[in-house]
């Protein structure tokens, strides 16, 4: 394992006991950093290794969140079970639409996933089972870990998604994805079943994204279409990924931590300027650092 990946792994493990000494504020900040990092790792599977920019991937965040909430409220499932099933629902949906959707490339693919995200938001705003525009209230977690539980779940999803990326970087499976990223037609002629592999990559991305959405739903205890299908979240994870370095194992970690910490610092000091600053950050990151801090070739 290369040095940077090891560092990420060690840092991640070191963060498990941190809540013992952290204030509630920093616990929340870090939980949201872990959330963005996991989302970024999920996108790295798809964009970084497979070459498909799912700009509307937050659709699966919403699906995972709503599925988890509905399973808890309507079916009375415990959170853990609801969360896993929620993630599976998101990834099955992704897997089912992938063969048709992934005939599109680049920004056509990107914008079509964004349309999917908006369509789902609209649909959920109108259905009864999703509580329409009012959304759903979830129960408040009162277990022994208190609010720390969300810190730990997000951190574990982060760890899991990091390991998935590490596996892809090194494995046979990962080479199928990289071949698709480099040249899909050549990948086919080399014996790679591209439709299958890219659909699986899409499904993995959706699974992680769905898990994060489900945890987020339980964390904020109240969800509506606006909070679960927020395009700003989409763009944040892409900027984090592009900043850190697409197609590297450490990039998403570096990108998401820097972006979320910076935006948190700005947020707390100048609440009003936050949006403007975020807009400027997006422009600067892409115009000045289109390749990211880390390069995929070094991996």
């Amino acid at each position, binding site marked *: 394992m290369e040095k940077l990946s090891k560092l990420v792994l060690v840092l991640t493990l070191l963060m498990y006991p941190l809540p013992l000494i952290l204030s509630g504020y920093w616990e929340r900040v870090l939980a949201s950093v872990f959330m963005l990092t996991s989302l970024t790792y999920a996108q790295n599977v798809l964009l970084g290794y497979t070459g498909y920019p799912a700009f509307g991937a937050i659709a699966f965040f919403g699906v995972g969140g709503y599925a988890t909430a509905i399973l808890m409220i309507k079916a009375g499932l415990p959170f853990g079970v609801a969360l896993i099933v929620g993630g599976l629902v998101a990834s099955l949906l992704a897997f089912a639409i992938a063969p048709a959707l992934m005939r599109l490339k680049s920004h056509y693919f990107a914008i079509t996933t964004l349309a999917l995200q908006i369509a789902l938001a609209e649909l959920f705003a109108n259905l009864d089972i999703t509580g329409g525009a009012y959304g759903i209230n979830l129960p408040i977690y009162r277990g022994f870990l208190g609010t720390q539980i969300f810190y730990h779940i997000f951190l574990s999803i982060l760890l899991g998604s990091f390991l998935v990326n590490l596996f892809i970087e090194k494995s*046979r499976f990962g*080479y*199928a994805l*990289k*071949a698709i990223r*480099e*040249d899909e*037609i*050549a*990948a*086919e*002629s*080399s*014996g*790679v*079943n*591209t*439709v299958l592999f890219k659909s699986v990559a899409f499904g993995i991305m959706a699974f992680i994204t769905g898990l994060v959405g489900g945890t987020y739903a339980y964390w904020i205890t109240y969800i509506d279409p606006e909070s679960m299908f927020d395009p700003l979240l989409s763009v944040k994870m892409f900027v984090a990924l592009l900043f850190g370095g697409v197609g590297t194992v450490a990039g998403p970690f570096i990108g998401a931590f820097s972006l979320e910490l910076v935006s948190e610092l700005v947020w707390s000091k100048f609440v009003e300027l936050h949006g403007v600053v975020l807009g400027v950050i997006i422009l600067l990151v892409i115009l000045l650092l289109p390749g990211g801090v880390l390069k*995929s*070739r070094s991996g």
Partner: protein
Amino acid sequence: MSLLVAQEIYKSFGGNKVLQGVSLEVSQGETLGIVGPNGSGKTTLINVLSGVIKPDSGVVVFGGRDITHWRPHRRAKLGIGRTYQITRLFANLTAIENVMIPLHYGSRQEASQERIEEILQMVGLSHKKENYASDLSLAQRKRLELARALALNPKLLLLDEVFAGLNPVAVQEIVSLIQELKNKLGITIVIVEHVLKALSQLADRVVVLAEGRLIFEGKYEDMVKDKEVIKAYLGERYGASA
């Protein structure tokens, strides 16, 4: 026995009728050359044979199996390897990785380090094995594509203008390499080529494609004397200068 049979292949792009009923057979162990003016449909024919595009009608049979509706990855696993007129390598992967992928996914062989080295050695790229594909020269890229096709352990190789853009020395080296593949490994080869000298050394038999139809089939020596063929080429030349 025929390893590959294509029957009555038709293909149009919009109103552009590119293949208009092409039929051909390639025997086991044979090397078939395909020549024809620019735009006559040679690459399209290779694309149909390798599954990259679907014909509008017609049948492709390989080793007795109808593979007309098979996707390229299944044909690759069956033993059909190909190269591209404009190379399509995995640009940001190393030479080793470029060969490893078809070994893993196409040939069902163990992608051992030795096997990869052996293939790279065969095409003369051992010294460049750690280089990224995009950093290779044109001749090296063509060799790497050949290596990638060989990693499939192919029964049939489809080569689309491997010599285009190479200097005479490089051409001669690759000609020898292909002769070796043919003689030592007994691979059946279909080769599209503008470089006629190379073709004369390699092809057992030649077909000429013009405007989507086969207008000649036979020995290389007879082709260069054939009236139809000369007309097709001259016509093209006049057309180009008009």
